[in-house]
């Protein structure tokens, strides 16, 4: 089971909440303070993308965020309910930000993935018949955390 699981209505105003919760759990898990900004940004990008996918596909289901604390790493999974939505786009998101940026709103989705893949070393984008999932992880030193 995830350490913390968050489900929120696919609305832009809740993405900030997801960022705050993810950063708080990451801090507790022992993720380096210098990396917390990246965690915050990456989870925000993944959630913004999921919110956009739900809106454009008219999906009422909530966006799902799993925050998983392991001994040596902290993982986040952001799941959307759009089959084929995440797809293999993540694989080539890296170098395309400029081109994607040209088309503004349509480009934001690709730019979100570009930001994630530019920031996070360990990232995986998958998709099946139930929807897409972006998995990201960071090293964590779970010892020595004093509340």
């Amino acid at each position, binding site marked *: 089971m995830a350490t913390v699981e968050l489900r929120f209505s696919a609305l*832009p105003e809740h993405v900030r909440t997801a960022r705050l919760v993810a950063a708080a759990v990451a801090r507790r898990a022992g993720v380096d303070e210098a990396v917390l900004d990246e965690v*915050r940004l990456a989870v*925000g990008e993944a959630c*913004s993308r999921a919110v956009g996918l739900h809106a454009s596909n008219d999906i009422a289901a909530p966006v799902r965020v799993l925050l998983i604390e392991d001994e040596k790493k902290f993982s986040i999974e952001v799941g959307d309910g759009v089959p084929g939505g995440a797809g293999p786009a993540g694989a080539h998101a890296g170098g395309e930000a400029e081109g994607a940026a040209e088309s503004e709103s349509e*480009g934001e989705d690709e*730019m*979100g993935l*570009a*930001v994630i893949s530019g920031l996070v070393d360990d990232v995986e984008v998958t998709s099946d018949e139930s929807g897409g999932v972006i998995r990201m992880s960071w090293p964590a030193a779970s010892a020595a955390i004093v509340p």
Partner: protein
Amino acid sequence: MDLSLSTRTVGDRTVVEVGGEIDVYTAPKLREQLIELVNDGSYHLVVDMERVDFLDSTGLGVLVGGLKRVRAHEGSLRLVCNQERILKIFRVTGLTKVFPIHTSVDEAVSATD
């Protein structure tokens, strides 16, 4: 935290001071502001991001959209930013090549291509 926006004119430039978080929720507000300025004939914009706490790709998209609009009028859009965590987002997306990024409003206002 919400987004704060204020504008002022310095010479032939319009300085947009942005504060708070630019994300998927607040970015439309910035987009509207930039569109309004261009519609009102302000084609040389300086976006001061020194008080921005958070910027994501939605915000980047809005800035790129603003750049496209001012360029259609042979204008310019310059950024002011010294915050490493914000600059990093421009770097990972390659947008440092697209936007002139300055260290102060004075420098941005007096800059010419």
